[in-house]
């Protein structure tokens, strides 16, 4: 029996990795700071810097060092380099950064774009019901998640229908789930998409990228645990939950689905889990306490 080699030499103590202690401000640096800040601001800044533990700041935000998409060189990203960077446009650095050929538009008053009547009617009804303009409805991200046939056995024989489940979201806090059933798959999918857009509801997100705290929920036979994750983590979840996060606008999440993994029920349970988040404002109001986002206030969102 060979003894396994000891790992003690390989694992270094995390506290040993701290950078050398920063020198206190020199008198000239202090004078410069005094010229920029008021005495109260300066005393607050110095007290804040003294209060933050170096271990917390350097080691616990360790993941920043292994950032795969981070630049390998120091760069001042606040200034625009004339050679390397895309030139800014009036619209910003969006899609206009890529040179596009100017396609002339047709200014014919008699030219009308014909729309499929059924779809148009449905969209108009939806716009009236939800209060969202047609343009916004068309921009919604919809996805067909599940589609399979279901059979009802009667004395006449088997009645076969198609069941569809779709989700709709605006990528910025709205998400809805809809189901449709019909003899034709087209109709079922359309119904499901329509219901999904109709059932859209706002879902609270922490910093617009993840959920508030860890959530554990059980619905039917599906037991689901959702974990809030730091920025840049990504959505590391199963495919259905991933798609829903894309439509909703969640960028950092972890999920664990134990017990049943039936796709239809997982989708419904995920919606329930998102709804059952405990918001800090509600907790604070209920307990009569003041709440502070330590991450934002003390660490400036860097931990």
């Amino acid at each position, binding site marked *: 029996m060979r003894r396994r080699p000891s790992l003690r030499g390989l694992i270094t103590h995390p506290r040993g990795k701290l950078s050398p202690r920063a020198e206190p401000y020199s008198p000239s640096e202090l004078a410069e700071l005094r010229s920029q800040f008021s005495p109260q601001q300066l005393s607050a800044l110095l007290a804040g810097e003294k209060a933050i533990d170096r271990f917390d700041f350097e080691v*616990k935000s360790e993941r920043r060092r292994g950032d795969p998409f981070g630049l390998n060189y120091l760069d001042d990203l606040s200034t625009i380099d004339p050679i390397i960077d895309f030139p800014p446009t009036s619209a910003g650095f969006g899609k206009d950064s890529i040179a596009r050929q100017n396609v002339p538009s047709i200014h014919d008053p008699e030219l009308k774009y014909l729309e499929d009547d059924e779809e148009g009617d449905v969209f108009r009804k939806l716009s009236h019901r939800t209060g969202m303009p047609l343009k916004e409805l068309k921009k919604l991200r919809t996805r067909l998640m599940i589609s399979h046939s279901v059979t009802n056995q009667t004395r006449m024989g088997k009645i076969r229908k198609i069941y569809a489940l779709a989700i709709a979201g605006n990528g910025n806090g709205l998400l809805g789930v809809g189901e449709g059933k019909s003899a034709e798959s087209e109709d079922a999918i359309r119904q499901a998409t329509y219901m999904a857009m109709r059932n859209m509801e706002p879902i609270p997100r922490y910093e617009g990228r993840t959920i*508030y*705290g*860890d959530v554990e929920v059980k619905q039917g036979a599906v037991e689901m645990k959702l974990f809030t994750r730091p920025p840049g983590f990504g959505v590391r979840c199963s495919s259905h939950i991933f798609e829903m996060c894309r439509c909703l606008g969640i960028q950092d999440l972890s999920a664990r689905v134990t017990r049943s993994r039936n796709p239809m029920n997982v989708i419904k349970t995920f919606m329930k889990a998102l709804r059952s988040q*405990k918001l*800090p404002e509600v*907790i*604070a109001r209920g*307990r009569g306490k003041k*709440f502070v986002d330590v991450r934002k206030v003390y660490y400036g969102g860097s931990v």
Partner: protein
Amino acid sequence: MSLVNLAHLILSIMLGLQDQGFISSVTRGSINGPDKEFVPTTQENMSLVSKPTQRIWMGIEGLEEIVQGRLHAYVEGLQPGETLFLGTDKGVLEVREAIKRKIGGQLLCRAS
């Protein structure tokens, strides 16, 4: 009127005494007097940490990890809005109070 601790055993004895006519009424209350409105106790949002089968004590380093939401020594980290109570030499303290005073103790229960 007199006070007794609230425990299942004691409560059932008191109800028995009431049945037999020794006591006229049994109500829940506090040291200040009986409760005016009935407030039911709930254990839905509370759970034990240190159990009779496995007692858990923790020092200041571990408590700091827990308060920041990290798992430490098989004790889950605190979620936003969750609290943890520990029994210390200075009495029962909330975890953040104990960290301020730099003392550890037995982790009694958590509430959310």
